[in-house]
């Protein structure tokens, strides 16, 4: 009697285990495509994040290079341009980390375009550099390749103590 009870208990247990295994398998088959889709989506996000990270690292490296030479000031445009240029500071923008962005307009009248080019090259060679963001050349009717040159330059300077 006891053996019979054991026999059937064992069978029931085996049947229950098998049923559990089959149900679990069915559940797995049902949810696996969804989970794989979710993993693939996350992998795509991760790839995009890695791309962003590369850009962010490049940006951080750019900032670091300025930080390494934070005590330096942009060179004087007046000294570079001499008296022939009309120089006006347009704006100064406070940036994070104690940096200030200066935007300055330089206007040359009746100047050969090549000479303006030499001025730009000299400004960009300074450390920290001036950077041309916009320029307009208007030739004079009297002389080809010469006229009015309007340049917009910007430079960064550490003016505060932030990081």
């Amino acid at each position, binding site marked *: 009697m006891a053996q019979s009870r054991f026999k059937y208990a064992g069978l029931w247990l085996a049947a229950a285990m098998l049923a559990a295994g*089959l149900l679990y398998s069915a559940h797995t088959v049902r949810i696996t495509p969804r989970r794989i889709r979710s993993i693939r989506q*996350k992998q795509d996000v991760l790839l*995009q994040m890695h791309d962003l990270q590369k850009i*962010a690292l490049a940006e951080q490296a750019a900032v670091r290079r300025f930080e390494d030479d934070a005590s330096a000031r942009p060179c004087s445009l007046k000294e570079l341009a001499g008296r022939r240029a009309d120089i006006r500071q347009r704006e100064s923008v406070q*940036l994070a980390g104690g940096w200030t962005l200066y935007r300055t307009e330089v206007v040359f009248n009746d100047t050969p*375009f090549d000479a303006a080019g030499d001025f730009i*090259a000299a400004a960009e060679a300074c450390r920290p550099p001036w950077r041309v963001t916009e320029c*307009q050349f208007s030739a004079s009717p009297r002389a080809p*390749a010469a006229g009015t040159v309007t340049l917009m330059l910007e430079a960064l300077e550490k003016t505060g103590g932030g990081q």
Partner: protein
Amino acid sequence: MSKLRNRTGYGVDLAGGRAVVVRSASNRRFETVYNGPVGEMGPAVAAAATAVSRGRALASGCQSVAASLTRVLKAPFASVKKAGRVLPSLLDIQLPFPLETCIYRFLDVRRSGDHVRALALAAQDEAVRRRMRQHEEAGMILTSLDHEGLALWTESLEDYPIEPDAVRMVVSLGCENTVLVAGRGLSFESAHHCPVSLDRLRSGETAAADDLVRRMRHVLQAGQFLQAGQKIQWAWTGAGAADEALRSRLESLLELGPEVIRLVHREPETMLARALSRRAIREGNYAVNLIAGDRANPALEKLRLRRLRGAAVFYFALGLLLTGVNAGWNAWLATKEAEISRRIGRAAEAIAPGTRIYPGQEFLLVSRAREANAPNVSPFTRVFKPSPAMLLRELLDAAAAADITISKLSLRPDAATVTGASETWAGCEKLSPVFTTYGFMVSEPQREDAGADERVHFSLSAGVSDGAK
């Protein structure tokens, strides 16, 4: 009847003081284990008996045709289920002893036209006990008690397949008596015994052969096998089948013509034991066991229990394996997903430190944080991009080389325009490659009004594509 599957089966044929034991394996190989006097069988088959008692093999003997009865019953019902209820009563009418004293089975129950046909097999309870005792005394406790006639019939069909409508008479010339089994196609029809021993037949006693032949003719007539044009196959087996002279004498008494099909079974002396050993381990239409139920061999129950336990363990292990594999797979997926989420979180923290990042929105929040911080960072990165001054220098050089006079030039980070004059229309297009090198998209040059200098006046516009900004 459901039979426990086993790889090894023993068939035990006890008759006329002699015993034949044949072992069969599921790969259809047969081996005669013993063929000799019953009294000496015990020690020779001790190993086989042990294997049977431990449930490692099955052993089958047979109830002789002489001590049993077979009848084809026809129940006037179309339903097999309904017919099953009246078959015992139909059998009871045909029995010369009370049904209650019998062990009976109904085999091959099937619909045939408007009635149900069944083969009834019955043996007196006492005869079955006696037969079991004979086997026990000989040294083998059986797991099943088969029927001699059915065993001979199915084995004959194994040896020589039969056409669907052919009639076959299997004649087993045994030491003790002769057994006749008749059937049509695959259907067993009847089994009969004739108390004519092989010794009497071999002695040349005319009466013995005449008795046997008369009995054979009676069986053929009673079974309505002698229809016009019906060819009967005569299959000889038993210890006497190898005696060609005896066979010839019986065939001549039966007046069998040359057109009659004569078959002699291979190793006829051991055919019955071979049939029993095969049927011990194989399912079949005429499988039968007269000692099922309370009288079943305990070894059989032991074997059944072991199989049950084995099945339970197998299915439990299968369930466990399925659960384990699924749990492992799901855990692996969860781990992989969590790892990717962690890496996304780490990347987000590295890109936008201090930003509150919610799971699932990392890219959106980081992009917003970067957009918000762009004015703080872009002046630094602009410095390391190709300078507009270089573009300006190359434009001036290209203009000088192509003899282009620039009257106006405007250069902004995302747009540029050039107005000027050149010697030819093709000359103005020489500025386009310079813009293209710096990532600008150049539109078609526009022709301007001609001046007094007879040069071609033009304007050229270029812009930065969205992707290059």
